């Protein structure tokens, strides 16, 4: 097996997605089949290959240090599920 239930559970937690037992079961099976398929990559020798993270050969893209207009604060918070005095409001965080 390429992936088991515990790993799926751990990974879902990393991704902050709560899964029911049923979903966990379901996803484990599906992901295992997908990863088994993906295993065909292991038939290739890739030792001397460079990874392609950018398909274009690009480099040194930048902007100059100049200030642009920010968003009006009304636009910033208009989509907020919860807010207070132009600040985003979330459940109390126990300080790390």
């Amino acid at each position, binding site marked *: 097996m390429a*992936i088991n239930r515990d790993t799926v559970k751990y990974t879902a937690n990393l*991704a902050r997605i709560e899964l029911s037992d049923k979903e966990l079961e379901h996803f484990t099976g599906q992901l295992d089949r997908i990863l088994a398929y993906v295993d065909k990559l292991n038939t290739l020798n890739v030792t001397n290959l460079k*990874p392609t*993270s950018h398909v274009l050969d690009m480099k040194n893209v930048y902007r100059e240090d100049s200030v642009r207009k920010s968003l009006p604060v009304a636009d910033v918070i208009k989509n907020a*599920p919860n807010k207070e005095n132009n600040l985003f409001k979330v*459940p109390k965080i126990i300080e790390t």
Partner: protein
Amino acid sequence: MTMNMKLNTLTAHELIDLLSKGDISPIDICNDIINRIEKQEKSLNALAHFDKEKALERCKNLKEGVNKGKLWGIPIFIKDNISVKDELTTCSSKILKGFKPPYNATAIEKLMDIGAVLMGKTNMDEFAFGSSTETSCYGPTRNPWDLERIPGGSSGGSAAAVSADEAIFALGSDTGGSIRQPASLCGVVGLKPTYGRVSRYGLIAFASSLDQIGPITKDVEDAAILLKAISGHDEMDSTSADIPVSDYSSNIKKGIKGLKIGIPKEYFIEGVDKEVKDSIKLAIGELEKLGAVCEDTCLPHTEYAVSVYYLVATAEASSNLARFDGVQYGLRAENITSMMDMYKKTRKEGFGDEAKRRIILGTFALSSGYYDAYYSKALKVRTLIKMDFDKAFEKFDAIVTPTSPTASFKIGEKISDPLTMYLSDIFTISANLAGIPGMSIPCGFTKANLPIGLQILGKPFDEDTILRIAYNYEQSTEWHKKKPKL
């Protein structure tokens, strides 16, 4: 053309002619589209957000005057993952419920600058995760050629709307075939530009190194017009290329005599529908008649493309979709006890199954202990796939393949089996991994009267050549003129 002709059935370039002659007004076009939508949309479900009053208002507010812009008065639909200021932009996901971006995507700015009229947003697979538009939180879109079937995906709403004449043309996005495959399955034209040709600024990212916005149109000329309108360097997108944009519309009209076209054998394997193979072969014959030189070639790492894609794309997606956490916008679960609880419940409620599956897969591929075996390896094999194309393009000007191994399938047929669904992208994925442009044009029908698409792949930033091949083929065939009977 007679004045009682339904304007919604025309192409953009036809409407541009009529508008310039003063025969019609933008409101006339808008009205015909609204009529069509009111009649047809219930059975199609191609649109995610549409407000006819707003659409009419935009028409009325169009600036008159001499500098009207190339697309002045032409209505356009936008896939629901492209940001439009103060308009619902939800990626057909519950997690972006009610979300209205505070800014426009660069492609939208460009279209508005030249007078295009934004009509509404089209349905899609949730976050573009899918090949059938069945994973939308708004329900599946149906294929205008057979309402029991899927329109392809993820830009299924855009393709179905254009095919059913609810739209003149539309924008889609393509990460692994999401423009070309639905275009193929709905019998319309779809083009995925070279990575970097069109700014991604404002396109809600699925896989940042693969995504491109592109046109879905009724014919090749419109694809050329719309591509030109949205292309070009954008200082807001570091990955957009600073390479001049061609005059596609005039270049397509040149012939294709002597062009070298490669036919990769890996695209005619077992599992490809015979009717599809036959149509493609006929199309190749047509291209030869037009003077192209078609030869067999090979892209040996094609069989690894799906594997590479589903690791690279999901890894990037897992990171891109982390921001949907209920803090700043969109859905936030109720009755939450802590920050952790808020994250987990919001994402549980907000994401559909396929989104969850891909996020978990991508997270896994990047996680400690698996990165090298999965993500890193996939990026290396991606290099091999790119090299295949580099090599082929040393010899050929373009490559021709089927867009999809089969015509449209039934709603529900593959949705319960993710891997089978993933394999329906098998012929479109490589172009995204290699960053090259590709398009799909209608090239025939199955016995069941379902459209078949011809895929044309080109060299990086050589959209000119694939558009030219497509145009020449289209002009010598009648496929694009056929309309679904709704």
